[in-house]
């Protein structure tokens, strides 16, 4: 890899160049349609380059990313599995891509049918009474569920504004609670990594609106007592929200509604393969019990006499949380996945994920420390404290060094309750050979830490840049490019 600083597009820009010319309008451009004081004075600074320069920029820079299709990407909680190409083509087909959310429903029956079926599939897989494919991502789904809970309570117990959350939770959980105008109540986990049900029950009080529980939790452990918690919450007319980011571990094998959960979000981009796109898009459908159904967001697709229609008429609904029905193109990638997998295939997702995680876990037993050394679900958490004490090499260093060995690092320093944490999620689409090679690499890195720690603490050595200065980035904020001031004279 060529390691010189490549210029930004803005830096190769030269006036007058352009990649994509437009035709002249066939009708006159009205000269004074826009009042003078609203007319733009100076054009926006956008790159001026040829198509060839454009292509080289995006090709060369894209190659600086590590991605699922260049190698193993065991980022815990993120489910970086392989994303089938057929989904990409499917959602670009004209019936799904060349249609407008406001055109007459009669002309878009197939896409409406698919969105309707998608809710249906997810109801079947989660066991919930209803599923809305409206929210845009996991945390959006969380927020939507909380809004529904809030809406219920506004009617019945307006004082309820607290949500219990275990300390192993993902940051979006407390953040969503705040955004919904409620207060998170933090509950420490037990030493075995599981929910402290006793503590939780003890915290249930008159202001408790509900609880948020991730299951399997972020340590990769199944919360066996989840139904007890649900029962305790239900006893006081509070709700259990289940964070479904880890649904990959149990899909087809267990149904969250059976755990006593009242609502749940599903990160389609994790369990049901939407490529993560360097940060998105995702899609975050939610499932909910009948009691919460009146509050579900609008709009929804309904089927009437064999025809599909968009319905806005839900008087108790919280309303929309985004424009239009769904992030259709994202949601229907997952639709294609479920259609091509079928029941047996879906179940094998979970089986493959759990098999791979446990295999990798035992392969790593003599390299890393396992704070919770037991059968895991689709992922597991290890700690680098011991290594750090022995060699001074931190988990961060191991992560960076993995890049030199050809692997993307696992999630590190999350969940917060495990010091020097590595959270490893292989997913079901990785082969035994890959898992073996990854375990090997970690073994070799531990050796390096013992014999030549500097090579690890200064890693990565094979990436386009080495250790970036994050403090400087935050201090000398430069979050957009600006032209060099023209030299004086």
């Amino acid at each position: 890899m060529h390691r010189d600083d490549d210029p930004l597009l803005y830096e190769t820009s030269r006036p007058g160049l352009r990649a994509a010319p437009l035709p002249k309008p066939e009708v006159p451009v009205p000269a004074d349609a826009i009042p003078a004081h609203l007319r733009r004075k100076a054009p926006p600074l956008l790159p001026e380059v040829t198509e060839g320069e454009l292509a080289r920029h995006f090709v060369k820079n894209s190659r600086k990313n590590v991605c699922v299709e260049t190698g193993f990407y065991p980022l815990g909680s993120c489910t970086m599995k392989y994303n089938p190409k057929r989904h990409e083509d499917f959602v670009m087909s004209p019936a799904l891509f060349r249609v407008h959310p406001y055109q007459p429903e009669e002309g878009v029956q197939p896409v409406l049918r698919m969105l309707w079926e998608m809710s249906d599939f997810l109801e079947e897989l989660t066991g919930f009474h209803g599923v809305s494919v409206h929210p845009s991502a996991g945390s959006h789904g969380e927020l939507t569920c909380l809004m529904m809970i809030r809406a219920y309570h506004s009617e019945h117990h307006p004082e309820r504004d607290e949500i219990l959350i275990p300390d192993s939770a993902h940051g979006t959980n407390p953040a969503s609670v705040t955004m919904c105008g409620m207060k998170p109540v933090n509950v420490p986990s037990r030493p075995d990594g599981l929910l402290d049900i006793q503590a939780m029950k003890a915290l249930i009080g008159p202001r408790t609106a509900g609880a948020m529980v991730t299951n399997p939790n972020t340590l990769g452990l199944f919360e066996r007592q989840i139904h007890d918690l649900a029962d305790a919450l239900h006893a006081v007319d509070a709700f259990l929200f289940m964070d479904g980011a880890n649904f990959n571990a149990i899909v087809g094998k267990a149904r969250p509604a059976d755990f006593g959960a009242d609502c749940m979000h599903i990160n389609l981009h994790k369990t049901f393969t939407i490529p993560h796109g360097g940060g998105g898009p995702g899609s975050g459908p939610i499932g909910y019990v009948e009691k919460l159904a009146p509050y579900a967001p609008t709009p929804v697709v309904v089927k009437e006499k064999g025809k599909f229609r968009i319905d806005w008429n839900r008087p108790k609904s919280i309303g929309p949380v985004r424009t239009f029905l769904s992030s259709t193109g994202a949601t229907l990638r997952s639709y294609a996945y479920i259609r091509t997998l079928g029941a047996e295939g879906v179940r094998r997702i979970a089986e493959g994920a759990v098999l791979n995680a446990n295999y990798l876990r035992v392969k790593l037993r003599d390299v890393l420390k396992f704070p919770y050394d037991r059968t895991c679900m689709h992922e597991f958490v290890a700690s680098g404290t011991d290594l750090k004490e022995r060699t001074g090499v931190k988990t961060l260093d191991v992560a960076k060094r993995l890049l030199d060995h050809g692997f993307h690092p696992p999630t590190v320093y999350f969940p917060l309750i495990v010091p020097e944490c590595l959270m490893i999620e292989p997913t079901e689409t990785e082969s035994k050979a890959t898992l073996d090679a990854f375990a090997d690499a970690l073994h070799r890195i531990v050796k390096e830490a013992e014999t030549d720690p500097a090579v690890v603490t200064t890693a990565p050595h094979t990436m386009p840049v080495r250790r970036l200065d994050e403090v400087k980035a935050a201090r000398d904020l430069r979050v957009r490019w600006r032209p060099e001031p023209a030299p004086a004279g």
Partner: protein
Amino acid sequence: MPYIPHSAEDVRAMLAAIGVRTVDDLFEDIPKSLRARRKPRLPRPITELELQREAAAAAAKTETFDRMNAFVGAGVYDHFIPAVVQHLAHRVETVTSYTPYQPEASQGNLTFMFEYQTAICELTGMDVSNASMYEGGSACAEACLMAVRVNGKGRRKILVSRGLHPEYLRITETYLRNIKDVVVEEVPLKDGVTDLGALARMADADTIGVLVQTPNFLGIIEDGPAVAAAAKAKGAKLLVCADPISLALLEPPGAWGADIVCGEGQQLASGLAYGGPYFGFFAAKQEYIRQMPGRISGETVDVEGRRGFVLTLGTREQHIRRDRATSNICTNQGLLALRGLVYLAALGPTGLREVAEGCLANAHYAAERIAALPGWSLSFPGKPFFHEFAVDGPLPAERVIASLRRKRILPGVALSRWWKDAPNRLLVAATEVKTRKQIDALAKALASAK
């Protein structure tokens, strides 16, 4: 299940290494009572060939924009997308990577985010931009939440112009309903634009911010500076929802005092896609950067002094700040924002202006043609518009739409959907992709609609 790369032999070896007999043994932690009692009921699995056939059958039954002469806009517009967008934005290196938590392994994405942020700042006239929101509606809601953080001390009111897209308005209400001590009030329209008199009356020392859209939902370019003056007079923040293409021709909101500018990014090469994925753009003044939601890429150097980029100001975000974060957003719309960047860079300032001029020209030609038809008139004559306009006809708009559908024309959106008092009002959009012939066909069909 064509995705699991284990031979039977592999599975045996792996189970042996783990020390269990069957894969099901690994699920022992799930109490029996919590396990699914039966296989899920799903349609039988189909192969890719069958999926292709379904897509083809669906297309045959669908009134796609390729087949219809369509003038439907109302927030989602059919713009030309150059081939480079798909080819350059959809390399697996960008499509199958995650949020750039490991910057050394993500310099491509971080570079693109930085360039995207620059382009958005330039379009909007703002200092800082984040790397994307979900879409336009929730971006507006988040803009209001940010305004509360920035200017909520001792203030309580958010004023939202009725010129805001009605769905955005409802989304904003949905989001803000839960925020203690904050209320949303709607500023009425007058002659199709924000009623400045009403605004002046409603804006007061209790006002956190004023949210206005331009071109507004009826297609009309608002008098931004006048709105700004009304808001600023009372210390309210100005939040603007803008159409990114129109910004090639319109003075950017930053130039007339906006504090936050956000909007729908669909226009920048997301395609129609029946509602998404699109992306929301979100920009603000420098001084508010620590209150911004979402990811931000920032420039820095590595240990060898080379330029590089990292996610910066992570302390605003949920994964660090948890319940004190500026937003709960995590997964955003990175790939769509990247498409937007490729699009903007392919067009450059000249191309973007040409797109905007094509819109302006076609919409004005269409408006003229329709207004000249007997029984038809512009709903708000004399008001400046960009690529969309409202017309009143002799028949209920719903009926006009149904009648023209049969001629393979989609004339627009019936505004009666949101304004019950205007049953005959049609919102018509004409972007740069329309030909004169198509517009003439629309006018001809409208003349004989019944």
